[in-house]
């Protein structure tokens, strides 16, 4: 059963990589952005099916970090500088959200 799950995951990743790099004809940066979005799909799997609450908090934290990198690549493609402003603010809000969620998980109040 464990071997079957491992094999299904490997086939899923291989099919995505084949369609991304050989079928889809786009700019190289868009292929890299597609890989970032595929990673975000894994993170959403952990958010939905996470066994405990701490798994979901870790997944949301890492989702913010992934989106910072993806916004940097998007700004590199469009040659616009304001995407980095959005990325910085997203990193700040993700940090504060992680602190607040873990404080609630620990059982303390917000004005403690």
């Amino acid at each position: 059963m464990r071997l079957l799950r491992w094999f299904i995951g490997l086939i899923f990743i291989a099919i995505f990589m084949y369609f991304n790099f050989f079928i889809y004809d786009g700019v190289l940066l868009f292929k890299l952005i597609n890989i970032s979005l595929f990673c975000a799909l894994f993170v959403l799997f952990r958010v939905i099916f996470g066994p405990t609450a701490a798994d979901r908090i870790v997944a949301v934290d890492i989702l913010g970090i992934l989106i910072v990198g993806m916004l940097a690549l998007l700004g590199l493609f469009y040659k616009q500088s304001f995407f980095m402003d959005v990325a910085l603010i997203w990193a700040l809000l993700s940090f504060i959200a992680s602190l607040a969620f873990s404080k609630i998980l620990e059982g303390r109040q917000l004005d403690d």
Partner: protein
Amino acid sequence: MIRETIGMIFIFIGIGFDFFGVLGLVRLPDVYNRLQAATKCVTFGSAGILFGVFILNGFNSFGFKALFGIAFIFLTSPVAAHVIARAAHRSDIPLAKQTIIDDYAKDNDLKDI
């Protein structure tokens, strides 16, 4: 020419670290192991992508915003990881079955703070 090559190499390494960190986030058995794998996304994943963007753009506003983003991520993300791990251990989330030693549970003085 060589500047674009070095920048794209940094971006490729960053994308690779992001992908394998997220794969570890799915595969590993425990909250703490998942946190340890997922923090690899930060230190060379997104920071590698931002450093590649800085090399590709040079010393204009875009590049300096990317450097500021690297400094900001390096300052905030270990704090968030530490706080999440401490809250998970204090709220009695069980460890994996393969765990051998748990020194933090012996320090009962820390729970009174």
